[in-house]
């Protein structure tokens, strides 16, 4: 069964997601760091990232870090074969897809998810899981800044997520850039606040709001 948990801000919903997964699976989690490797960060900019790491630990996930950059298809198969859960961190979905195109990670993750690898993600990781990533472009973090063959996501679901809906710090990004450029008859979109995530079982979806769960 295909199973995904697509969050906007993982550490806010992690407890709820963690309760739905078996301990045995959580103990075999690979944490994909690639989305935050697109630039150097100051420690003070990574508060959200450290909160995600702490939340994973508190919810019973035991993670190994892995960066898909500079890996071959053979490396991916060899290195990731033993994991039951893949956690895709937030950061930059355009950089992630650029790196994914280089070693066919897109196809790899598609095949593994169909075989039962559980995909857990936040923000950029949830954007990348979708049908297309271009709707999330904004100045400074855009599909046109990267060497992309196309703007497809992994295509694990048939919609595109716009994460962090309603967050004051993201208001200009959404209302000035993301919404106007997404106003097309192309794909379904889901506007997801930081309290919500999409749970996927095969082709069926459910949106969970942890403030109401």
């Amino acid at each position: 069964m295909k199973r995904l948990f697509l969050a906007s801000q993982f550490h806010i919903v992690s407890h709820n997601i963690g309760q739905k997964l078996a301990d045995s699976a959580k103990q075999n989690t690979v944490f994909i760091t690639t989305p935050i490797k697109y630039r150097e960060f100051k420690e003070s900019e990574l508060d959200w990232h450290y909160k995600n790491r702490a939340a994973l630990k508190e919810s019973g996930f035991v993670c190994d870090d892995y960066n898909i950059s500079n890996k071959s298809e053979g490396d991916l198969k060899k290195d990731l074969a033993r994991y039951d859960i893949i956690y895709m961190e937030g950061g930059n979905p355009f950089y992630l897809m650029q790196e994914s195109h280089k070693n066919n990670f897109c196809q790899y993750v598609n095949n593994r998810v169909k075989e039962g690898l559980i995909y857990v993600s936040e923000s950029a990781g949830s954007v990348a899981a979708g049908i297309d990533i271009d709707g999330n472009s904004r100045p400074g973090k855009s599909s046109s800044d990267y060497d992309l063959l196309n703007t497809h996501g992994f295509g694990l679901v048939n919609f595109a997520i716009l994460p962090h809906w309603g967050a004051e710090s993201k208001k200009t990004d959404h209302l000035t850039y993301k919404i106007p450029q997404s106003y097309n008859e192309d794909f379904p979109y889901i506007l997801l606040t930081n309290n919500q995530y999409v749970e996927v079982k095969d082709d069926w979806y459910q949106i969970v709001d942890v403030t109401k769960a």
Partner: protein
Amino acid sequence: MRHLFLTSAIGTPKVGESIRSKIGHQKPLKTAFITTPIEVEDMTDDRWYRDDRTALANNGFDFFDYTVTGKSPKDFAQDLSSIDAIYISGGNTNHLLKESQQSGFIPFIQNFVSSGKLYLGTSAGSIIAGPSLPAYLRGDEDKAPSLTDFACYNLVNFTLLPHWGSNFFKSNYLGGRISQIYSELMPPFVICNDHEYVEILGDKFKIIDVRHGK
């Protein structure tokens, strides 16, 4: 099991056909076509409405027109007890909500859906299936009644934003509607264009794009 189909426009080519294929009904389904949302609409150009009716008729829905305006729970029990499906038209969501509240239609439709009977909606009929009226519809449109309770049918835990990408609604959405719902307190929003619809089965949903057949 609860089974709903929320569309932007059931009259869009292939949408009605796709829904029919999902239900798989061999015999016509007796359906109440709820006309309440158009009671306050300017229907001079009613092509969309006629397209919706044609799509239903061509896809095995044997419908009769019905309004909730002026009705009571007793009327619903008597008039709608033997039907298979309820279709709620597009039109004015505010008016539909006001009349639904005044007539006691909301508990009726909640029980109707829980019993496993079909719910189909277009536009206003899809929006009102969600938890609450989107902020942009609360009193900012010409014929909006002064509602004080914005709770909708709550058949699904998200609000559908219909007609996404259409030229007709572009100025509405980008001219202010979206900025009015930019809040972390909102229910989730699922955005569909006229070629997409949401099928709900139990507590889960899928989104179908009829151009891709999935």
